[in-house]
């Protein structure tokens, strides 16, 4: 058979009267892709800035460029949404590569906002004491210099700062913008790498505790590459199954609306094994990114080792992007496969909720604690994903929005609590913080309560939305498990509060640095979001509702 197959291939090629005519010029709707394009452009400008702007003024130039770009991109997103691309005009752009629809725009908006507030924490330069009269941020003076070496000292003395982090941030954001809106598997994969690689680098660039930082980077990189290899193989298998990359086509093949199967290809085309294995592997890659058990193990280490601003940004934005992609994959590509992947996802969601909550109980490092809590939250969100209803989508969107703000805010607070060795992340050092600086402690308590899902906070609204969707989607047991695990989770959030308010301050306890308006803004926004989304979430729920439909 192979001979015929080969022949047929040649004939198709030969039969082409005019090969050029077979390749139509791609049609790109630049306007609709503007958010991504803006960010990418800005990133490139950032690179140029690194090349040409004198060192002293790079920082300001970079911050300016990035801030403007992010705002502009956000404006673009809003404009598109206002123009109805989220609802009525939703369609596939860029030759089927990118979907411009509600979920995409909503998540892009969230990502851009968290990118913006993340940028603020990146740009913070008041927390660390001045080194040789130079304000320093939380990134290594020179990534290349060996920790503790003379070259590093020299770099610090010279007042070097790694202003490359800003372009890196922008590249990551750009990748994240594409990720949830990718409408074919290739775009998905490229976007995945585009936002992963900068994050790997950012992880390695901590100013203090550089060994940890580098270790985190290595672990994140190796495991991330490992995971993306799986994803890629999954993509290959799906391609093999459907002979196409585009979500739409694959979906059609899955639900059998395309049946023109060349008998010659019977053993690949429409072979469910390929479909199932491929789907599973892609999903696994995404679950890795959202940090679901058992693909979560990188999370605590990376969250702990990475520079805290990066951790905050990563924890918020990565989850958003990855869940966006997961939603689109499950709702657009594999809806026909619902009955296969739902039970599996059930399992994942349950162990993720319980695992994250239980392991967090005995954590002693605040960053690791938040890492595990983020795992548990991934589980809650998965419960919403499983609903496979429009409600499910919108509830997940809402949850992601709420969660990202709270997370960034929490990590921003973590950057403030410092002692001689930089950030004092060990819990024992947080004892009695509430008596030292009630305001900071109170703010952090608000975030913790929101994580714990106490009413009148964003966390509660989100949790309620997700569980509601899940229950309505017939996943009542999941809700019960979720409720129980959030009870467990409550325990360690409370533990931190007890520590901050009811324990005696330690004499060698940390001090709370007074940040610049940047970080203040970040925290302020986060608190505001937490409370507003908790008390009057209706507007945002409506937004998420309108955004709840995927374009096919």
């Amino acid at each position, binding site marked *: 058979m192979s001979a015929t197959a080969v022949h047929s291939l040649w004939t198709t090629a030969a039969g082409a009267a005019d090969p050029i005519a077979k390749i139509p010029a791609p049609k790109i709707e630049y306007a609709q892709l503007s958010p991504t394009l803006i960010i990418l452009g800005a990133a490139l400008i950032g690179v140029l800035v690194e090349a040409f702007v004198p060192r002293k003024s790079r920082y300001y130039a970079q911050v300016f460029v990035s801030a403007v770009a992010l705002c502009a991109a956000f404006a673009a997103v809003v404009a598109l949404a206002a123009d109805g691309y989220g609802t009525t005009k939703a369609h596939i752009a860029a030759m089927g590569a990118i979907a411009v629809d509600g979920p995409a725009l909503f998540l892009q908006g969230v990502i851009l906002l968290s990118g913006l507030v993340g940028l603020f924490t990146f740009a913070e330069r008041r927390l660390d004491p001045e080194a040789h009269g130079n304000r320093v941020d939380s990134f290594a003076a020179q990534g290349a210099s060996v920790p503790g070496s003379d070259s590093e000292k020299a770099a610090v003395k010279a007042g070097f700062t790694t202003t490359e982090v800003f372009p890196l941030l922008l590249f990551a954001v750009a990748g994240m913008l594409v990720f949830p809106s990718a409408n074919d598997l*290739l775009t998905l*994969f490229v976007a995945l790498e585009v936002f992963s690689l900068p994050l790997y680098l950012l992880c390695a660039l901590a100013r203090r505790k550089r060994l940890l930082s580098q270790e985190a980077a*290595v*672990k994140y990189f*190796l495991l991330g590459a490992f995971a993306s290899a799986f994803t*890629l*193989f999954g993509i290959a298998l799906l391609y093999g199954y459907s002979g196409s990359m585009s979500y739409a086509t694959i979906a059609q093949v899955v639900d059998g609306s395309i049946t023109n199967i060349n008998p010659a290809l019977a053993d690949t085309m429409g072979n469910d094994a390929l479909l199932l294995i491929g789907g599973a592997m892609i999903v696994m890659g995404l679950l890795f990114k959202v940090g679901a058990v058992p693909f979560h193990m990188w999370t605590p280490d990376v969250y*702990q080792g990475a520079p805290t601003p990066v951790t905050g940004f990563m924890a918020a934005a990565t989850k958003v992007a990855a869940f966006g992609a997961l939603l689109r994959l499950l709702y657009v590509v594999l809806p026909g496969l619902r009955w296969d992947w739902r039970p599996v996802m059930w399992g994942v969601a349950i162990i993720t909720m319980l695992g994250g909550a239980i392991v967090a109980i005995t954590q002693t490092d605040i960053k690791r604690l938040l890492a595990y809590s983020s795992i548990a939250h991934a589980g809650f969100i998965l419960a919403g994903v499983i609903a496979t209803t429009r409600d499910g989508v919108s509830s997940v969107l809402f949850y992601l929005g709420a969660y990202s703000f709270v997370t960034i805010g929490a990590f921003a607070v973590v950057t403030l609590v410092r002692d001689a060795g930089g950030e004092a992340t060990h819990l024992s050092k947080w004892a009695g913080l509430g008596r030292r600086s009630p305001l900071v402690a109170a703010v952090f308590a608000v975030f913790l309560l929101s994580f714990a899902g106490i009413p009148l906070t964003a966390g509660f609204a989100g949790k309620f939305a997700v569980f509601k969707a899940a229950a309505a989607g017939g996943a009542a047991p999941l809700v019960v498990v979720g409720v129980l695990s959030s009870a467990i989770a409550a325990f360690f959030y409370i533990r931190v509060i007890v520590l901050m308010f009811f324990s005696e301050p330690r004499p060698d306890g940390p001090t709370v640095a007074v940040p610049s308006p940047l970080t203040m803004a970040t925290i302020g926004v986060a608190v505001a979001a937490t409370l507003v989304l908790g008390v009057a979430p209706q507007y945002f729920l409506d937004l998420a509702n309108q955004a709840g439909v995927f374009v096919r």
Partner: protein
Amino acid sequence: MNPVNYLYLSALLFTIGATGVLIRRNAIVVFMCIELMLNACNLAFVTFSRMHGNLDGQVIAFFTMVVAAAEVVVGLAIIVSLFRSRHSASVDDASLMKL
């Protein structure tokens, strides 16, 4: 000959790569194993494209190579800096953060 065999080969390569990642200590080697997995994917892509008789698969192969190259850039940078500060490229040595 039957192109499906190439699929088997790619699967085999992929598994070898994965196993390598699991058992090898040296970060560089681990990373090369990952590259091996990516190449296995490439093989699969090409094979499928051949079987489906469309070019997508082959195009993707190129993308993959580019991505792999990018990964090399980033990965080596990180690994090298790790090596320089620890004088060892063993992934097992880099285990300060645990529990």
